[in-house]
């Protein structure tokens, strides 16, 4: 029942998105613009600063993720379907998981585009250890989306919700970003520093477990209003 509900929520969002592809295309384009702005900001003597690659990748993920979070729940509020969802005879946490999976898919697609772009623009050897990079990105994205989905959902009825989402979200997930950036930077050296990267993947995993659990636990009381 739980996973069926989550799957149904995911399918519903995917079906709505497939009509216009609005959120996907605008998020992707925003992510690319982010990277471009940063590359202009960090160019020195005509070449991009190399070490900036890891940071820029994760900043682009964070910023485009924040926008996408706001827009996904905006749809629910606009269509006034949020109350219908909450009234459905399904565990509330399953709604959260469905939304989370949708966000993960969206950010995953964005990262598919961002990683090669960053590797290209900054001559960053991101593909030296592809499995470790995927693990880092997965761990970081799950951590970001777990907290982000919860906060976006709970802010959907608040005033000043657009600016409150980053204000509330960023302090909580910046440790995830730090771990992601440090891990990615470890992989970008002349010889990829695998033990450090693996350590950071462990930190991200620990974060994910804590925050997904916490989010599942608090989603129900937060949406009961």
């Amino acid at each position: 029942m739980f996973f069926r509900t989550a799957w149904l929520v995911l399918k519903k969002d995917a079906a709505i998105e497939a009509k216009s592809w609005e959120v996907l295309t605008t998020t992707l384009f925003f992510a690319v613009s982010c990277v471009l702005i940063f590359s202009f900001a960090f160019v020195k003597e005509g070449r991009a600063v190399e070490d900036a690659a890891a940071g820029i990748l994760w900043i682009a993920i964070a910023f485009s993720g924040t926008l996408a979070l706001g827009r996904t729940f905006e749809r629910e509020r606009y269509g006034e379907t949020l109350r219908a969802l909450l009234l459905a005879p399904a565990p509330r946490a399953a709604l959260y998981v469905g939304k989370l999976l949708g966000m993960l898919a969206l950010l995953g697609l964005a990262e598919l585009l961002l990683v090669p772009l960053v590797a290209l623009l900054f001559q960053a050897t991101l593909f030296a250890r592809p499995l470790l990079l995927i693990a880092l990105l997965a761990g970081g994205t799950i951590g970001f989306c777990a907290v982000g989905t919860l906060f976006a959902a709970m802010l959907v009825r608040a005033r000043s919700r657009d600016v409150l989402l980053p204000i509330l979200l960023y302090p909580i997930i910046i440790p995830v970003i730090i771990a992601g950036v440090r891990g990615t930077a470890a992989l970008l050296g002349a010889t990829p520093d695998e033990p450090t990267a693996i350590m950071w993947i462990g930190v991200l995993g620990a974060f994910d477990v804590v925050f997904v659990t916490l989010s599942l636990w608090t989603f129900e009381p937060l949406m009961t209003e």
Partner: protein
Amino acid sequence: MSLRRLLIALTSFVLLAAPAFALQPPKGQSEFVPVNEVPAADQLPAAPLLIVAYAFVWAATLVYVWSIWRRMNKVEDDMRALAQKMPHR
């Protein structure tokens, strides 16, 4: 949330965090940088810093207490204004 889920979450947390504690990154400094290694032009006299730190603690406390006092006055004023209006209803 069931006890089982909590136990699973705790176990996964410990398993995932273990490498983080086991694999330490290269050691940085573990002592203070002695102040005489900082160039002389950079050194500040110490006593004013200490006094400012202590004064800041007092200032922060007093500003916060004053802010509470100010808000309390406003609440009391509103209550009085409201209490005056009430008997007339």
